[in-house]
């Protein structure tokens, strides 16, 4: 790292269904919360990066925030939108282009969103006719193969989902705040074997914003700064297995872009997975959290069942994962989730997470997103 960049402010809108509130309004709420958290005003922001998947262009937010004339780059990287925005903000500070930069992500997906059209994915229309343009199939095929390959019992899936709802019940900003038993989760409608309805996150609504600053600005503002030790986005390597792939090319076990991004992040930060005290991992469904635990290097492939049984990923465990309830309890507003994760780690490292606070003053945190068409972004944060 050529220059330490700090997070000096983090803010969220409410998550979950909010009829009559637009995605852009959620973004403005999140930005105001992040600015207040940093103790600054909108005119103090010198450059901004942000985006949504389907709720509008971030640069149009200046009409409500104030027309200060700053450069505002719209990014659009699916689940990695927040990560890309954060990289933009960090590079702007490191390159000397700005001292204070903003990253914002937001979305407001209608119920049953994510209806992909084959032509948008470069696929013949037959894939739609045949019923193969269904995202949940991808997750099911991947976890089905994974459980079989590594001898993990399907019961782990319900255990992870139950933890998500349990953590959500401790998070006053979560969409789902009702705990749910493993029996309820296992007994829910089967979507794609082995995944039931309650193991998946739902398209949701929310906004998240992060303010980063140079060391000098962080010091001047006397901020309760959290150091951004690494931020690493990556695209997929050859042979990986992704949603809406008509084939998986190459021999052998498909590589994981999450592995590439997390390794890059750990290398940048100069720490290893064992050093991390709290982590947020992409949990589009509960199987994803299981696989990402190993793909990001926190355990060996196949070790997860033992970890989960021992409660190691609980708030009280060795590596608390998705302490705010993750995507399963907060929903998935695609553009917002990556920065929601960063907000949660900032909150945990500051010791301000209330009922869901990880004990023992965590000092190092990690975030990870993964999404189409084979992208991942990871961060390492520290105090």
């Amino acid at each position, binding site marked *: 790292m050529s220059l330490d960049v700090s997070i000096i402010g983090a803010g969220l809108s409410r998550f979950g269904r909010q009829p009559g509130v637009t995605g852009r309004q959620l973004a403005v709420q999140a930005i105001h919360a992040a600015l207040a958290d940093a103790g600054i005003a909108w005119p103090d922001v010198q450059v901004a990066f942000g985006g949504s998947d389907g709720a509008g262009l971030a640069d149009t937010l200046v009409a409500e925030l104030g027309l200060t004339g700053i450069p505002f780059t719209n990014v659009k990287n699916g689940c990695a939108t927040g990560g890309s925005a954060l990289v933009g903000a960090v590079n702007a500070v490191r390159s000397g282009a700005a001292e204070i930069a903003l990253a914002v992500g937001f979305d407001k997906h209608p119920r*049953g969103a994510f*209806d992909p*059209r*084959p032509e948008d994915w470069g696929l*013949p*229309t*037959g*894939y*739609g*006719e*045949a*019923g*193969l*343009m*269904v995202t949940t*199939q991808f997750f*099911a*095929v*991947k976890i*089905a*193969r994974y459980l*079989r390959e590594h001898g993990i019992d399907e019961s782990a899936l319900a255990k992870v989902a139950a933890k998500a709802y349990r953590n959500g019940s401790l998070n006053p900003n979560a969409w789902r705040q009702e705990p749910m038993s493993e029996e309820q989760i296992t007994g829910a*409608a*089967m*979507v*794609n*074997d*082995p*995944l039931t309805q309650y193991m998946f996150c739902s398209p949701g609504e929310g906004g998240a914003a992060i303010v980063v600053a140079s060391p000098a600005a962080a010091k001047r503002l006397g901020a309760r700064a959290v150091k951004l030790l690494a931020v690493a986005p990556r695209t997929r390597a*050859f*042979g990986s297995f992704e949603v809406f*792939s*008509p*084939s*998986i*090319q*190459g*021999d052998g076990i498909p590589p994981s872009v999450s592995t590439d991004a997390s390794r890059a992040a750990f290398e940048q930060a100069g720490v290893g997975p064992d050093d991390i005290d709290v982590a947020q991992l992409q949990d589009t469904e509960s199987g994803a959290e299981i696989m990402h635990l190993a793909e990001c290097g926190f355990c060996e492939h196949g070790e997860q069942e033992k970890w989960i049984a021992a409660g190691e990923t609980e708030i009280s465990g060795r590596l608390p994962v998705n302490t705010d309830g993750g995507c399963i309890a907060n929903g998935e507003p695609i553009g917002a989730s990556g920065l929601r994760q960063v907000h949660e780690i900032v909150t945990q490292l500051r010791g301000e997470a209330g009922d869901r606070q990880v004990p023992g003053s965590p000092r190092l945190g990690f975030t990870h997103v993964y999404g189409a068409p084979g992208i991942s972004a990871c961060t390492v944060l520290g105090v």
Partner: protein
Amino acid sequence: MTVESVLPLTGSRCSSCGNVAYPAAAGCQRCGSSDLASVELARWGTVWAHTVQRFAPKSPPYVPPAEGFTPFAVGYVELPDGVKVEAVLEATTVDEPAELADARVTLVATEPVPRFATEAWLSSRSAAEEVGPR
């Protein structure tokens, strides 16, 4: 329909690195070369992984069969050519994962998407044809 009458799937092979793609590609994902040749893929392979589609996908784009939606298996078939192809999987039952896990399957259709069938399904189908009207 006989298995022999099914056209093989057509992919492409990279002249630089030998990588096989399906469908036929314009550029090689492995080495970036655009020097690719058309190649006919094997008509059989092994189920690499699968799931069951339990609810009817949204129509459009999904076109359910005339007799109505029933759950179907879908997954990836590993071909000897060195590529795993997404396909609808025909099995005598989708409720017994063991019939499909690691099963050897044969190409039975290429449109609208690749479709492979288990030995058990093929046997039951030819048995049905033998007792059916001529």
